[in-house]
């Protein structure tokens, strides 16, 4: 028979025994795992994204949706195909669209099998003219603006000039770095209110010229041109600032519950009946995308008429915090 004292001693002993266990090796969960066979995370994969691109549906083509397949870069959004030179490839895909509307569509390099003596690279990029921080309304103005910003490291080899490629007008701008012995040739056109640029970089200008000649096999939509390129044809027309008050019949403002302070650039396609049929978030956190989606599908627009008939229109809206521009010219950054 146990006495009260012995029972108390037993309980105390049990408690002292259990105490280290309570603070010893914890069970799996949180910061701890006791599973030696636990599944591995994949490496080289971005699993945690910040503000990123997304869309309200997975069918409508997106600017960033181009791919290299069987040595052809195809971009259904821009209606563009570009056949790569044999033995050239896309080794690394680009970053997601930026919150100022800049896209790296493809980065083309010589493949391992390339036998040429010189290297070169092709950067295919796009700048959404609805969201650019540059004071440019079309491709020609943007290329000229970039040319004016060239610093002393570079030498202009050919000022922006109109050229014909693949039966379309492009603006061509050549510059070089004497110290790096590198040459850049920029060929830009405009499609769906985006400046689409092919940037060739190499030490070998003849190689670049050969690559530019290869661009003649491209296919482009009829609208493509350095000053035109405002949609139409099979694509919606694109109109900057169409979502201004006079065109919006019904509007529900999205409510962001998190204070994130980032720009949320959004492209929408407005159907013939004035309803929003597609939303493309260039850069948004998932909760922001949901809030905008919930709100903007309730918007009603005045249908856009051409020749008296309603047609689809594409426009841009900036939610969140719009990028601010410099207010003082004395605060220009100094670059090398």
């Amino acid at each position, binding site marked *: 028979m146990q006495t009260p004292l012995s029972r108390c001693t037993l309980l105390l002993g049990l408690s002292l025994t259990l105490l280290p266990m309570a*603070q010893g090796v914890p069970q799996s969960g949180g910061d701890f795992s006791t*599973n030696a066979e636990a599944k591995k995370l994949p490496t080289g994969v971005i699993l945690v*994204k910040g503000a990123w691109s997304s869309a309200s549906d997975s069918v409508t083509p997106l600017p960033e949706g181009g791919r290299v397949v069987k040595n052809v870069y195809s971009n259904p959004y821009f209606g563009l195909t570009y056949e790569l030179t044999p033995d050239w490839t896309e080794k690394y895909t680009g970053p997601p669209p930026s919150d100022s509307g800049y896209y790296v569509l493809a980065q083309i390099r010589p493949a391992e099998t390339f036998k040429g003596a010189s290297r070169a690279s092709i950067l295919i990029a796009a700048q959404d003219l609805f969201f650019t921080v540059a004071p440019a309304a079309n491709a020609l103005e943007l290329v000229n603006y*970039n040319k004016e910003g060239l610093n002393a490291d570079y030498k202009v080899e050919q000022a922006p000039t109109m050229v014909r490629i693949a039966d379309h007008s492009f603006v061509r701008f050549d510059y070089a770095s004497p110290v*790096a012995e590198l040459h850049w040739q920029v060929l830009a056109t405009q499609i769906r209110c985006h400046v689409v640029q092919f940037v060739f970089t190499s030490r070998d200008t003849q190689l670049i010229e050969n690559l530019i000649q290869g661009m003649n096999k491209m296919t482009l939509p009829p609208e493509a041109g350095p000053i035109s390129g405002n949609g139409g044809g099979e694509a919606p027309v694109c109109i900057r600032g169409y979502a201004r008050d006079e065109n919006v019949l019904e509007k529900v403002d999205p409510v962001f519950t998190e204070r994130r302070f980032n720009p949320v650039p959004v492209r929408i396609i407005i159907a013939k009946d004035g309803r929003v049929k597609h939303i493309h978030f260039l850069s948004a956190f998932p909760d922001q995308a949901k809030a905008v989606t919930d709100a903007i599908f309730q918007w009603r627009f005045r249908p856009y008429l051409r020749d008296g008939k309603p047609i689809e229109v594409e426009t841009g809206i900036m939610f969140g915090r719009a990028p601010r521009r410099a207010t003082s010219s004395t605060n220009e*950054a100094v670059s090398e």
Partner: protein
Amino acid sequence: MKPNKLALLLVCVSALPFPGVVFAQVDPGVRSGAINGQPTATPMNPLPLASVSSKDGSLQFFQNGLVRFQDVESVSNSPTGNNGLGPRFNFNQCSGCHSQPAVGGTGPANNPQFQVIGNGIVSSSTNTIPSFITANGPTREARFPFFFDQFGNPNTNAPNGGVEDLFTVSGRSDAGSCRLPQPSFAQAQATNNVIFRIPTPVFGAGLIENIDDSTLLANLAAQARNNLGISGTFNHNGNDGTISRFGWKAQNKSLELFAGEAYNVEMGISNEIFGQDRPLPGEDQLGSGLPANCLNLTRTGYPEDTTNFSPTVTSSDPFAVNASIPSDVVAFAMFMRLLAPPVPSTTTPGSAASIANGRSLFGAIGCATCHTPTISFTQPSNFTASLGSTSAPVSVNAFSDIEIHHMGTGLADNVSQGGAGGDQFRTAPLWGLGQRIFFLHDGRTTDLLRAIQAHQSSGSEASQVEENFDSLSPSQQQDLLNFLRSL
């Protein structure tokens, strides 16, 4: 033919098709010579900004902060009163990890975290040295991108990203009965669920703190003219929405916040900004916090670091007395704020001509687009003239745009901080790079060439610039490496 002659012939023949290998560019290594390029600086005595003076007290505050930055912290029985360490921590002294090439810098060659058992900082009965902490490797903090689920698998639906402190005070004589396990580092490594960060050097940090947002925005607008695939953005402070700028993801707004967070997270010392002892992320968000016997280990209440209501220094110099009154966090911040930026060498490594050419190449191929050599000027400062004044603003030669950029799958750490996603990092300021040992956010390499190459991967804004670097001749690449090591 004798075997040794045959071997020699084979070596010669095999080298013929690869002449570039013999003369290939190499990282010159850590630049020798003056600490931070400042002849009067020593490893224990980095220099303050030129205008810091004993006449207005700024020098006394700098010196006081420098001393406190080197204080060794105990849990509860420090003879100098430096208590509050733990219950979890990464090291017990700011300057232990911020010491290369001088106090305020980054991780040293001999990793002090590897020596914590031998030095009696932690008990071997309750702590082991994680395998990623090595004798000559980088000083590191560890983070688990994801929490483990109940089965011990990383749960990608439960992002973590917080610091998992390496050590506990358990078993120390001044830690009472507190018993805490270390996080599951081995399983985290086995499941690819751990990433690392190394200390950021803080030389010149006061100048970065004192750049107006409009200046940074002007730089971003100018940067948009590039044809390199680059388009960055800023991280913002969650309270006031202004641009934040310190830390690997620019997640901290100010040096005081930076110091307060580090004191709490890296050393486990609660303070006037972070007022509680910090549990592990899982203990905090998924569990019940720290056990009662691991709280208030100093027995003096919280926060463990406070304003000293009475001066702790007796001196005939009133400024020295004043400097002893603020909390450690305020003193740390003032030390960092008044710490001079490194001075680049114009002659080593290589030669003046090589460095000058490297500098031109750095701009020409596009490195300078993000690693902006000079972000214009500081705003007027209330602290000292070297931080800028209305009549004489100071140029900030940090080689950074303070923006966050997508760095691709090769560098992504899957940790989100503020507005920065798992692949976005602040452009690392390059001033002082010449005397750093470890590179990139996790210190994965000591080879500058490999650090440059790591900028290229899918999803990186820097891939095109790295391609341009690859297009340079070996001698041009060498000039660029020499330039970087001159900083």
